[in-house]
């Protein structure tokens, strides 16, 4: 229990009047990559947003490094060392690549200390540094979105569908990058592409219709054909 950096316990979340999450539990062991699996609309994004404080949790508890996150504002949660990479590569299109990285710095030196690492992971960004984010290609935007979460010293990264809509070769690069960064960070990933998920993740949690229905180690999941078939629709 104590080596789980993040512990989501049976949370319920409403969006407006809709009861979207009706009991989701996720354990995220520190130092590993955990993936949230589930169909479209299952509630994966909402789970990440609930952790981040962007959606209001009405029941249940989320504890991060032994402190509760429920009821905290998003900016407070981020300051605890959680980086969020939202779906659809939500970078700031009007801001230059440099400004996109600058804005993420939480204290002096953040950018300077981590910029080399970022450029090592995503060498492309170095030459694009003055370009507006909106001019970047889809893959480059995804890299920027991840890079942005690496500027401050975050212990945990929440990454939502990084491979969505990208070419296979770009996905290869991303997988490599996420592997590298996971060497000293914990990652909670949402990934629809089962192959990508298998390559990256150590643990999985399956979410279906607002409930977490199964979890375990990724290696075991390959044997559970029935589970995979039922909830993910992949053979």
């Amino acid at each position, binding site marked *: 229990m104590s080596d789980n950096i993040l512990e989501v316990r049976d949370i319920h979340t409403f969006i407006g009047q809709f009861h979207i999450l009706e009991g989701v539990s996720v354990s995220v062991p520190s130092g590993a990559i955990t993936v949230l699996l589930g169909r479209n609309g299952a509630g994966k994004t909402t789970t990440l947003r609930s952790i981040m404080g962007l959606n209001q949790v009405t029941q249940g508890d989320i504890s991060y490094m032994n402190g509760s996150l429920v009821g905290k504002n998003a900016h407070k949660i981020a300051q605890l060392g959680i980086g*969020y990479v939202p779906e659809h590569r939500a970078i700031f299109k009007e801001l230059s690549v440099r400004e996109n990285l600058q*804005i*993420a710095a*939480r204290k002096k030196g953040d950018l300077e200390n981590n910029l080399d690492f970022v450029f090592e992971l995503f060498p492309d960004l170095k030459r694009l540094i003055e370009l507006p984010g909106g001019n970047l290609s889809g893959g480059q935007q995804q890299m920027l979105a991840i890079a942005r979460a690496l500027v401050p010293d975050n212990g945990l990264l929440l990454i939502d569908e990084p491979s969505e809509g990208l070419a296979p070769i770009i996905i290869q690069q991303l997988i490599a990058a996420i592997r590298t960064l996971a060497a000293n960070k914990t990652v909670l990933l949402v990934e629809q592409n089962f192959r990508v998920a298998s390559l990256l993740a150590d643990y999985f949690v399956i979410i279906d219709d607002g409930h977490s229905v199964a979890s375990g180690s990724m290696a075991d999941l390959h044997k559970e054909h029935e589970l995979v078939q039922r909830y993910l629709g992949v053979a």
Partner: protein
Amino acid sequence: MGTNFFGGKRDAWLLVIGMFVAVLVFALFTSDFNLSSFAITLVSGLFQGMLLFLVASGLSLVFGLMDILNFAQGAYFMVGAYLAYDLQHATGVFNITEAVPDPNIRFIIGVLVALFVGAVLGWVLERWLLRPLYDRPLFQLVLTFGVSIIMLEGIRNIWNTTPYSWTDLFAIREAEFTLFGQAFSMYRLFVIGIGILLIIGIALLLRRTRLGIIVRAGVEDPEMVSALGINVRVVFTLVFTLGCAVAAFGGAIAAPFLGATISLGSTFLIQAIAVIVLGGLGSYEGTAVGSIIVGLALAAMQQFSIGVNIPVLATITPMLLLVIVLLVRPQGLFGEAR
């Protein structure tokens, strides 16, 4: 539908240059190609444009960032005008003419007090009235209406409804400069200069400082800004407060020419709304360029409408310009195409 033709940002600038040329040519034409009356139009157009900018800039930043159309902005302009007038003259509520006999210093005091009061009132409105209504934008709109009524009535109760016209003279109002053989009060140049300084200053603030980067990011996606660990609400309050302060400041420096009247606020508000929509909501350069274009067009039309004796022409100019721009380019000059 021809939307693509004017699609990108380069086309926006082309359109802007086209409009500038058209307005200037029209101004030349209405002044019968007489340079000294053209100078009048030019100076008065820039003067009005800068005053518009002072109201519109806050309106535009606040709308871009928080999606609130602050209908009380005009009232802040008026508060500024009344305060500056009052502190300058022996009439009114506060009389400091004896304590501060130098009219120049009184003017500076008036402007500073207006700035300060505008900021305080702006802070109160955002922090204590708008913030609880954060998820209900429509109610925020109603609330700003209510507040503008309260402020207007407050002014009415404090200063009565009689229009005040500025009588006190101070150095830069008396000094003159000439352009194309036409003499103007130095004060107009002063206001134009302040306007240009503010346009550049705010642009630098937005481009070069961390606060500016946060504001620009917040215009796009405030939620993501908070997910990066930034307390976006504080930024909202700050920008709102600054916007109101700048509007009150605008009223204060407009007062020596426009005086202090009860209808000042609503006129400027409606014109400023036209400006920010014409420029493209949420776009700072759109607001700056839009203010100047509308100011110049207004001045040219004022000249023209005197000639043909149809005074309505001048007053409808901002609206007409807005309607035309929206029909050609539905997102305004620099707005995001949706």
